[in-house]
Structures are given as structure tokens and as C-alpha cells.
């Protein structure tokens, strides 16, 4: 099954990359951007056919490896 995990940086955690991109966009004339944040999406193909089981397994992977609990939150979506 195709699963996608959005890993988002906690709002209170600084995002130097987002800030730098925002400044670059401003230099290019896009001055009316109020905020830029960069996150990651991880797409996985997981064997299995029970969506709930698959979701549970992927959430486990997030806690183990994919997301950094200190800095990030994650959202798992099973697109059957």
C-alpha cells in the first residue's frame, strides 16, 4: 500500500532554511510572503492490505526513525 508521511517541524522550533528562502524570495521581488516553512514528505510502499495495520506499523517507524520527536511531528496517510 502507498503511505505518505508528512513530517512537520514543531512551530516553536526555528527554521533557518525557511527564513533564508523567504529572504531570497523577497530579493526576487516577492515581498508579500509572510512565512515560509520547509517540511518533508516520505512516501512508502508497504506490503500488506489492512489499512489500520499498515498505518500502525508506519506510525511505529515514525517514532523509531522517520521523525525526530524532539523537533518534529508527523501525520500518516494511507492512500489505498
Amino acid at each position, binding site marked *: 500500500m502507498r503511505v505518505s508521511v508528512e513530517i512537520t517541524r514543531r512551530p516553536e522550533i526555528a527554521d*533557518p*532554511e525557511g527564513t*533564508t*528562502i523567504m529572504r*531570497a524570495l523577497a*530579493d*526576487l521581488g516577492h515581498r508579500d510572503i509572510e512565512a515560509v516553512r*520547509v517540511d518533508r514528505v516520505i512516501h512508502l510502499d508497504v506490503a500488506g492490505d489492512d489499512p489500520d495495520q499498515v498505518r500502525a506499523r508506519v506510525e511505529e517507524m515514525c517514532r523509531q526513525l522517520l521523525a525526530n520527536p524532539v523537533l518534529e511531528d508527523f501525520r500518516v496517510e494511507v492512500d489505498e
Partner: protein
Amino acid sequence: MRTAVVVFPGTNCEKDVVHALTSLGGEAELVWHRETDLSRFDGVILPGGFAHGDYLRTGAIARFSPVMAEVGRMAAAGAPVLGICNGFQVLCEAEMLPGALIANRDLAFICRFVDVEVTDTSTILTRNATLGQRLRLPLNSYQGNWVDPGSDARVTLTYLDNPNGSQGSAAAVSNAAGNVVGVMPHPERASEELLGSGDGLVLLEGFLQSLVPA
């Protein structure tokens, strides 16, 4: 004969490049990335480092620096333009060189000497080298993995033992005319036996000899 060595915010090899060029009798001057007139120079080097912190994609933001228009103009006029490491990445993003650079195969920064072979001697970088000549140069990059799907690019140097997954083991590529070259390993770091290798000198000499009064 003067060479402009461009400094973007985050560039860090600029003084090393000037040191190596001047030790060969060349004249080089640091130029801030906001400079809009390079007419007093006969060639340009974009040195290594982390322009704009490598944020978004390496070289993606630097490409829009005011100085880049002038670099483009000089390249079009046939002047020698060399991008080293991060400078290579900037030239790709600026579409002055084919392809792009992505993260190393093993997703780790690599700083060590690597062996490369000269595969094209008709560029501003390799004109003094001989075909098949082997050089020992320091690599120093996280995004040294060059890709260019369906490429017909001119590959100037290849790795003997591909350390980062680069397509066709390319360590350096040039534009069709051979006056714009991007090289991932650092010739200026191999400019003295005392530092472990002098193999970069033949490349930098080639660059200096390619300078012709604008």
C-alpha cells in the same frame, strides 16, 4: 590578467583560491556577490563553500546574486569561468553547466583525497594536462553527486573509484565550448606537496593560461 574570485555569503574557500593562484604568479581579487561590473577582470572563479548555507538546494539562491549576470556575460564572451565544489553547484543551478548536484550516495559528507583521471584536455582547466593523466585531489562535499539524465555533457575529469555516485563517475564537467568548467574536488587544496599533493597546480596553471585580455 586578473581573476575575480566571487564571495557569496557562506563562501569559505575564497582565500585559499587566491593564495593558490598568486603562488602561481596569477593576479586574483575577491569580489562581493553584489558586484555588478566585472569588466576589469579576464576570468572568474566561483570558489567552494556553502553559499546561502546550501539552503533549499546548493547554489539555488546564489544563482540570483547580482554578480551572476556578469559571470554569464563573461562566459558567453568566452572568458574562462571555473566553479569549484559549491561554485560547480552554482553554475549548474544557473544553467551555465548541464545537470545538477544531489546528495552523495551514502548520504554523508566526504572529505578526503580521491584519484581522478583527465578525460578531456580541451578545457580551460585541463589544457595543460595529458589525456588519461591521473591526479590526486581533495574532495570536500556533501552534494557532489552529479546527475544529468540523458546527458551528452562534456566530462572533464572522472573518479577512478566513484566515491559519491556521480553519473558516469564525473568529477568535472564543462560547457560545449570548454570555457566554463565545474569541478567537484578542490585543485587549490592540492597546490603544495606539503599539504599532501601538488596535482592541482596543472589545473590552476591551465586556468591562468586561458586568461586573455578582455
